[in-house]
């Protein structure tokens, strides 16, 4: 890994079926994710995907880039910038900003983001992971 290196992008579609399945497995059955009538009265005006569902897409990208190291030592700090609605398509991306040598390995720091295909930012933030010396 080197500074400036680009992480492999992921393209994801979000469906209502996926949001409903995520609600079941996560236990987050907030009606803004499931009930069109209640969601219509929320600040979003309609159903939105769970932020943690969209965050899982970023984590998948980092898993693909860093493998098991991501599970052992990954750190993520993000802001949720915009709601994601059922039917929308998203693209995750990332770039290595710094490589710091630490005892036992290298800490790789990255900027990461998730955008709607038309360009609007959904999540932005930073990630880091330690790649241990083998």
């Amino acid at each position, binding site marked *: 890994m080197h500074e400036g290196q680009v992480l492999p992008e992921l393209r994801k579609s979000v469906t209502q079926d*996926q949001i409903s399945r995520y609600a079941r497995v996560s236990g987050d059955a907030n009606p803004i994710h499931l009930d069109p009538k209640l969601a219509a009265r929320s600040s979003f005006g309609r159903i939105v995907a769970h932020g943690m569902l969209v965050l899982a897409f970023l984590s998948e990208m980092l898993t693909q880039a860093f493998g098991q190291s*991501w599970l052992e030592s990954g750190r993520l700090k993000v802001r949720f910038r915009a709601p994601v609605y059922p039917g929308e398509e998203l693209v995750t991306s990332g770039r290595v900003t710094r490589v710091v040598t630490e005892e036992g390995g290298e800490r790789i720091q990255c900027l990461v983001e998730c955008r709607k295909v038309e360009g609007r930012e959904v999540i932005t933030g930073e990630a880091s992971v330690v790649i241990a010396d083998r």
Partner: protein
Amino acid sequence: MKNSSIIAGQELGGVQFNLDTPLVEGYIAAVDDQSGLYQGTDLVPPTAVAALGVRTLLEGFALPPGAVHVAQELASHRIATRGQQVFCRVRVAQSSQRREGWFLVLEFTVANDQGQPILEGRTTLMVPGKEG
């Protein structure tokens, strides 16, 4: 629960989950994880562990349906594996009324049965509007 009754320093502890295979596979299918890292292994995605932390804080503080997830921090300390029992603790780090609404910063730790942290998180939520 009224927002104003959620006070910095409050804690919820010892909520137990079992990372059983149906839960983990259900999670991987729901988020459509195609990384392949979890196929044929007992590894658990860190965001699946984080989802348990978020579940604990949402249920523990009975947050209203309009709560908006504003920011999230996660830090993994060790790998979680299928079949493991984990324990989640949540602490209110900040609770404050601002112009846009009520802001809550909640910190959670998911630990193994030896008390070693697997994952720590810091969740910022905003509940729109002013309370009564």
